[in-house]
């Protein structure tokens, strides 16, 4: 009992609770899937008569406090059959509910029902992506990808083949990507073609682009909150998939009793294994003793949770994933003068490791406590090695060894305590505190040189690079999702953030406000304001996400980024399960960084501050989102009209210029249709105005320089390339259609699904990069590189 949170806090909150809820009692419990025991995040609980209600938190816990009476309480969740329970509330009551999944919920039944409606929530710019929809959507090379789906939502821009997200004019480092509450720093496999998230292990995905609740902080532009499954508490089950480039296996089930469950999920590519025969042939042709080369990536997710009692539950979750490319060769030789060998060993690897230890404890039925200890690591490692040894005819031996390794990364250890307090149906109060200790390793290289030259020897190792930098990021928040009268709902809060780096201390209060006013039964208007701060930057190539990208903290000269976002919107529940939201936003960003002119992306970590410029950014636009979550046909249509600009004192001569991902028009269309229980189909189509790039349009001569002998053509000839401005040239527009067909067959021991997908179904040659080349007649022309043509793929999945 000594380990309980401070009793004084419990007493104060309990007193406060009692004073607010005299003659009232609390109905609380967990909402779960009846088949798997998986918690239903955001499920609705409400009184059928008064329509007063609440929703389950991210652990499936709900709590509603009502006056003593008899109620018909309805429990509902998208894609599940609702349950109605008669509850006589004369004391605090605990009621755990299991809802049954309905593969295609009858849309007629839910019309007019009080399911989680967008018109009733204060959330703005927030989209929950149903996992069941994702399962049926088209894949790329047989891989289903959460990030790729998120990229199809309005307000999110991306580039071909990249896992980066550019949300409402923000950069790729401005997204807080959380896996079970732990920040993940690099979400890319294979240079961004795939993301690190294995959808088989994920239960819930929510993207927040604006109107940020106070509990989130640390990034300017978005939060992508991904929750792993907890594991089936009812029975052992699993999913096995075989795709074109990888295979996956997920197992989940109870351990001993329903109080403990686990889930493990792994994925590995096998390009390297398939390529081995060809590599052996290459080795034989080159006369090498041995040659091994390859590339692979893997992910491994694991989670275990144990319920000590109805009040106490412990979770331990972990993720590790890595990309690795390698080439090793050995060559033996022997002749009349000498014999020996040469060995080469080169490697490139990067990966994440995240863990979270979480303790849910119910202080009272209205007070839900969650303490989380987190660890997150991203590491990049590249190395080359060479070794040779030979013996001459006098039996003298010469040995040489050279190896060099470069390591960079970031390590986080975090502790946070969150409390949900639900004193009445009109208030959902959240508060908490967190601290993250960051250790930045901007780049350390070590070189080993050893040789033994017929008796004269040396063996030395030299390490150079920046010392690891340790910083601390503290966060405090308080928010209340409150109902004021019958029509107005407000989410008000404040996030206080502090950051200590070297001798510098930054403190930033960040107010948050979101309001929803119901103007008609199915229509509401919304408005929101968020102030966000960010204390870390990503030094990245603007085009593609490379593993060499470096995370660096703010310094005394590079100040924290500040974002202010104002949004206003209209939400409407239409007939037949359609939801429509229209949102306008205006966002300002201060202290964002950009590479100066002429700076190479392949920079050294120790002088990065000299190569970037701090400045301001603006983004504004409107988003339309029409979504249908229920019925045989589900999906969405999104449209974004936006402008995004940047301004830096010493870039583009101080003039404003468009951000690379300034995209005037962006359209996304996603549809999934269940033709029968045996066959369903998914189709997506995206369109985006071309990216802005910096490209010369003209050339002219160099002026003769007086009193200088290093005249004109010293480096690059007598020509100046004229650019209209940074990012002044627009690439051709991007559009692509993907189609998938899923054939489902019930087997004796489970369900088999054949997925056939066509990426880029009409084979559009979309622009990835532009460059100047030479045509057949020797003339200079502008050329476009396209990455992916029509790519058919298949995957076989077996669920049991």
């Amino acid at each position, binding site marked *: 009992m000594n380990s309980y949170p401070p009793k004084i806090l419990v007493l104060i909150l309990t007193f406060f609770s009692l004073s607010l809820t005299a003659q009232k009692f609390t109905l609380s419990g967990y909402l779960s899937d009846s088949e798997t025991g998986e918690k239903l995040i955001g499920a609705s609980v409400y009184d059928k008569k008064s329509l007063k209600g609440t929703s389950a938190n991210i652990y499936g816990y709900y709590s509603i406090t009502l006056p003593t009476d008899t109620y018909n309480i309805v429990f509902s969740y998208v894609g599940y059959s609702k349950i109605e329970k008669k509850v006589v509330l004369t004391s605090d009551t605990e009621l755990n509910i299991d809802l049954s999944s309905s593969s295609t919920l009858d849309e007629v039944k839910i019309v007019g029902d009080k399911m989680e409606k967008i018109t009733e929530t204060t959330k703005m710019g927030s989209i929950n992506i149903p996992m069941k929809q994702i399962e049926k959507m088209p894949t790329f090379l047989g891989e289903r990808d959460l990030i790729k789906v998120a990229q199809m939502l309005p307000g999110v821009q991306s580039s071909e083949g990249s896992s980066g997200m550019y949300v409402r004019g923000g950069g790729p480092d401005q997204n807080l990507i959380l896996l079970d509450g732990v920040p993940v720093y690099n979400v890319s496999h294979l240079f961004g073609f795939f993301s690190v998230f294995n959808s088989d292990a994920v239960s819930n995905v929510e993207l927040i682009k604006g109107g940020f609740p106070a509990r989130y902080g640390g990034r300017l532009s978005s939060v992508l909150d991904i929750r792993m499954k907890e594991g089936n508490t009812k029975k052992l089950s699993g999913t096995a998939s075989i795709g074109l480039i990888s295979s996956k296996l997920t197992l989940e089930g109870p351990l001993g009793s329903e109080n403990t469950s686990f889930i493990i999920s792994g994925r590995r590519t096998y390009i390297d294994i398939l390529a081995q025969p060809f590599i052996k042939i290459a080795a034989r042709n080159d006369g090498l003793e041995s040659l091994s080369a390859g590339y692979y990536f893997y992910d491994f997710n694991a989670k275990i949770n144990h319920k000590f009692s109805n009040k106490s539950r412990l979770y331990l979750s972990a993720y590790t994933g890595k990309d690795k490319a390698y080439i090793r060769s050995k060559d033996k030789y022997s002749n009349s003068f000498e014999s020996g060998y040469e060995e080469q060993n080169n490697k490139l690897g990067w990966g994440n490791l995240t863990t979270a230890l979480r303790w849910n404890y119910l202080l009272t039925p209205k007070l839900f406590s969650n303490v989380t200890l987190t660890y997150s690591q991203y590491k990049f490692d590249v190395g080359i090695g060479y070794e040779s040894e030979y013996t001459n005819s006098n039996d003298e031996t010469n040995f040489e060894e050279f190896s060099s390794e470069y390591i960079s990364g970031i390590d986080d250890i975090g502790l946070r305590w969150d409390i949900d307090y639900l004193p009445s149906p009109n208030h959902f109060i959240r508060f908490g505190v967190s601290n993250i200790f960051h250790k930045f390793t901007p780049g350390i290289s070590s070189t080993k040189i050893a040789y033994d030259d017929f008796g004269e020897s040396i063996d030395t190792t030299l390490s150079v690079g920046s010392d690891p930098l340790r910083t601390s990021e503290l966060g405090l928040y308080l928010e209340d999702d409150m109902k004021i009268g019958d029509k107005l709902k407000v989410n008000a809060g404040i996030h206080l953030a502090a950051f200590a780096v070297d001798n510098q201390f930054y403190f930033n209060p960040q107010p948050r406000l979101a309001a929803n006013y119901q103007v008609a039964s199915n229509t509401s208007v919304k408005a929101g304001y968020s102030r966000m701060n960010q204390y870390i930057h990503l030094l990245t190539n603007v085009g593609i996400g490379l593993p060499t990208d470096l995370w660096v903290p703010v310094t005394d000269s590079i100040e924290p980024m500040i974002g202010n976002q104002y949004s206003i919107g209209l939400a409407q529940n239409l007939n037949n399960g359609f939801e429509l939201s229209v949102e306008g936003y205006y966002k300002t960003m201060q202290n964002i960084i950009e*590479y*100066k*002119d*002429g*700076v*190479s*992306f*392949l920079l050294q970590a120790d*002088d990065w501050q*000299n190569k970037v410029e701090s400045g301001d950014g603006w983004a504004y636009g409107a988003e339309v989102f029409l979504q249908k979550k229920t019925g045989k046909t589900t999906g969405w249509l999104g449209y974004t009209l936006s402008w995004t600009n940047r301004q830096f004192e010493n870039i*583009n*001569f101080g003039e404003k210029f468009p951000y690379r991902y300034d995209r005037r028009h962006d359209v996304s269309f996603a549809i999934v249709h269940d033709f029968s229980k045996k066959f369903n189909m998914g189709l997506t189509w995206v369109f985006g105005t071309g990216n802005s790039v*910096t*490209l*010369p*349009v*003209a*050339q*002219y*001569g*160099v*002026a*003769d*320089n*007086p*009193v*200088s*002998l*290093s005249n004109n053509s*010293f*480096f*690059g*000839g007598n020509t*100046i*390339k*004229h*650019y209209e*401005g*940074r990012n002044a040239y627009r690439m*051709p527009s991007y559009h692509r259609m993907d189609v998938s067909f899923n054939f489902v067959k019930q087997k004796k021991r489970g369900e088999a699904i054949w997925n056939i997908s066509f990426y880029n179904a009409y*084979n559009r*040659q979309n622009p990835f990069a*532009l460059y*100047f*080349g030479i*045509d057949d007649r*020797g*003339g*200079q*022309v*502008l*050329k*476009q*590189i*396209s*990455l992916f*043509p*029509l*790519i*058919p793929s298949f995957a076989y999945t077996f669920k049991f």
Partner: protein
Amino acid sequence: MIKSKVVQLAVCIILSAIVFSCEKEIEMKLDESNSYVINSLFSADSIMSFDITESKSVLSNRFDYDTITNAEVIVTKNGSPISLNQQGGKYFSSDVIEAGATYAIEAKISGLTLSAETKIPSKVQNLSIDTSSAIIGDYGFREKKIRITFDDGEGKSYYKVSLVQKSISYYTDYNGIETSSENEYNEYFTVDGSRLDLINSTDDFGTVFGDDFYYNELYFSDLGFENQTINLVISFPIYSYEYSYEDKFYSVIVSKVSEDYLLYNQTKNQQQYTSGDPFAQPTLVYSNINNGLGIFAGISSEFVTF
């Protein structure tokens, strides 16, 4: 039967698409619009010269530029027109340029008026050098230090320092005639610039040798030395071999440059230095020509030879 034909056709279409579309490069049209260019960098005590040309498309393969010879050009000094001569498509001022004066140019071409204005900086005051320090280093690498001293004037100033090596070689040619040839180039040098507000970016027209950065031209402002005496020490390599048939001189040139001149040279050099580097952010070259491209700017230089 029909079904199998359809399947065969579908397979053929898919395979064809894959084969023909992987990493395909596509020619694209570029908006080609030409601008007029005035290029004139001039120095006090020298004659101003400039030409007016037409830019060409970035896709053009031509080596030369069209020179505009029918422009109506007026150059003024402190508001009063100066006389110009035109020869071979190039314009020359009749008189030398005066330090401290403001010059403006206006050129009317096909209904378009190009214009620019710049002030020539005043001359560097009291330039002197101290070459008394001994050559240091061993046989493999020797270097010499020079202390350069001059007075900064009033107002914001930008300076350029360069070290020119001039050598005259004497030899007998194939016909047995005694002859000589001259060679000049900018010597690379390091600078003890911890107190100087250096403007060169690290990628600017220099090179790294060992742990030191060697400048080809050094740019700095008078920040921290306003209206005071500026001292800087530069070091340059002395080659171990000296030829008896060669005379060698060095000149330290200190120029006071206008901001226009500085920005143009800095951005032009940076663009040329990073040309062809796919990882480098492109550099936009500065221009002060209204309605056109190019540069109209000047400097005032002093030099000491040793």
